[in-house]
């Protein structure tokens, strides 16, 4: 990686972070909304911990995995919308007329998303620890959790970038958000899969990749070092990341179809 490329990635990532930081709604909402939902769920679904076989006596610890996924989704939507706006306003054309390498744009954009994702993950983790959650996997688990948060930020971020580059429309990017939330609600977010009694829901949750992302984070919080959950979680996250990066790269090449 030469210096010019590194500089390009840095200024583009910096721009992405600065833009987000200057839109308070884009910072506060992804931080506050998942934590509010956590508070509501922890209060309303506390009785679930009494179910035989429920893996923990603390629903907050059980549900703490959810904000990580929701936060990544929010950050992704915002970043994707910003990229779509760049296309609509012609800002991407301006960048296209510089000797910018397409991959620098993608890396810069994702760099901004990762930074925001990391800040969010640190906040969720801190809030969890502050309300009494203890990480079963210890300090090492916290580091792995942050690394996982970075990985899903890249995966979802690339998906948002793909939508933005493919459609060039902020509205189209935002319309993905409800779809992502459907995936989230049809996962094991509120109950372990083995305790879901409705067959079709359990089947859907089992084939839903989001379940494995949640279970990976959850395992670090309430189980400790669960090799299977970690392997499945990181595996699914890697597949999502590789696929979305490939799709985003193809769309970027098409979008930057300069001669």
């Amino acid at each position, binding site marked *: 990686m030469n210096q010019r490329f590194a500089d390009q990635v840095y*200024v583009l990532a910096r721009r992405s972070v*600065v833009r987000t930081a200057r839109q308070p709604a884009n910072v506060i909402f992804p931080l506050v909304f998942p934590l509010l939902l956590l508070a509501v769920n922890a209060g309303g679904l506390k009785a679930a911990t009494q179910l035989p076989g429920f893996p923990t006596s603390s629903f907050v610890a059980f549900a703490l995995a959810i904000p990580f996924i929701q936060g990544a989704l929010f950050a992704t939507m915002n970043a994707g919308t910003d990229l779509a706006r760049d296309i609509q306003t012609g800002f991407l054309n301006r960048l296209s007329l510089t000797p910018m390498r397409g991959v620098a744009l993608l890396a810069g954009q994702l760099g901004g998303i990762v930074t925001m994702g990391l800040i969010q993950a640190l906040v969720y983790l801190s809030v969890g620890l502050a309300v009494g959650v203890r990480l079963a996997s210890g300090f090492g688990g916290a580091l792995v959790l942050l690394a996982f948060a970075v990985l899903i930020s890249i995966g979802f971020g690339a998906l948002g970038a793909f939508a933005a580059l493919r459609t060039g429309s902020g509205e189209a990017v935002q319309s993905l958000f409800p779809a992502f939330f459907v995936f989230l609600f049809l996962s094991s977010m509120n109950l372990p899969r083995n305790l879901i009694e409705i067959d079709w829901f359990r089947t859907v949750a089992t084939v839903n990749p989001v379940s494995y992302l949640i279970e990976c984070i959850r395992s670090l919080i309430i189980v400790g070092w669960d090799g299977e959950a970690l392997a499945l979680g990181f595996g699914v996250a890697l597949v999502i990341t590789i696929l979305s990066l490939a799709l985003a790269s193809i769309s970027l090449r098409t979008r930057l179809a300069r001669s």
Partner: protein
Amino acid sequence: MTVNERHGIEARGLVRVFKKGPRAVDGIDLNVAPGEIYGFLGPNGAGKSTTVHMLVTLLPPTEGTARVAGYDVVHEGPKVRAAIGAALQEAALDPLLTGREHLRLQTTMHGLSQDERKRRSKELLERVGLTRAADRKVRTYSGGMKRRLDLALALVHSPSILFLDEPTTGLDIQSRLALWAEVERLAREDGVTVFLTTQYLEEADALADCVGIIDHGRIVAEGSPEELKAEIGRPTVELVPADPNERERAAAILARFGELQSSAEGIAVRLRSGEADLVEIVRALDAEQIKVENLQLHQPTLDDVFLAKTGRSLEGAADEEEPVETGADAALEPA
């Protein structure tokens, strides 16, 4: 002497056809000399922006060839982009970044060293008069300030050719004049070739060494403003009779001095023998006792040239909005 110092812009038979749109550019030939200000004049939807997008490598031509700074726009895109600066229609700025941050981004993307970035940014902010506003977010800028910043961004890498797509549209007269002065200085003092699209006659008239008039994707006239006006040649007299009932008699008198022209308010005639006829017209009207509310002598303008070449006035000749597509749109929807 490098390639781009010896070359301006050349295009032969440039065509762009959009799948769901018209033949936006329909066989354009261009020859812009180095250091020249070329005014590309035409109404909205005439094909100006599509031509610029092809010349700056953002849009591949459907047919034809073009060389910018000596490089082929299709096969030598990176070299073309390194030689040109462009401020495209609607200043594409990030409202959340400051002017200085825009320059930092642009200088970095162009690979300037750390020291050069600072020096060039400072120099350009001074040049476009934005030093005091440099640390304000762009969303607080006026239209003129945005255009000046846009120009500064196009100049960070000292291009030899500058494309300005309707740079003064929507600006007040003061901002427009300031931008004209800067464009003129770039061409006259720095030797930058400027390709400027505009729908303002006075802009082309004041700035351009050579004007190409484009209509429906074709160049209908080309030459210096003086040459083009001389081609039309003769001045026009426009008369409004005090009594509207005298219109026909007044028209009959004017017809003796040349060909009658369409006129929104009165009767107009293109003088056969030049402005010397004006005295004779006044005498003839006086002899017929026709009272006149308004009588004006018009020297030929570029609008007259446009009228003569297209049968329409440039004012109000706007077609539908020009379908400018990005490379991606073009790639996704081939013609």
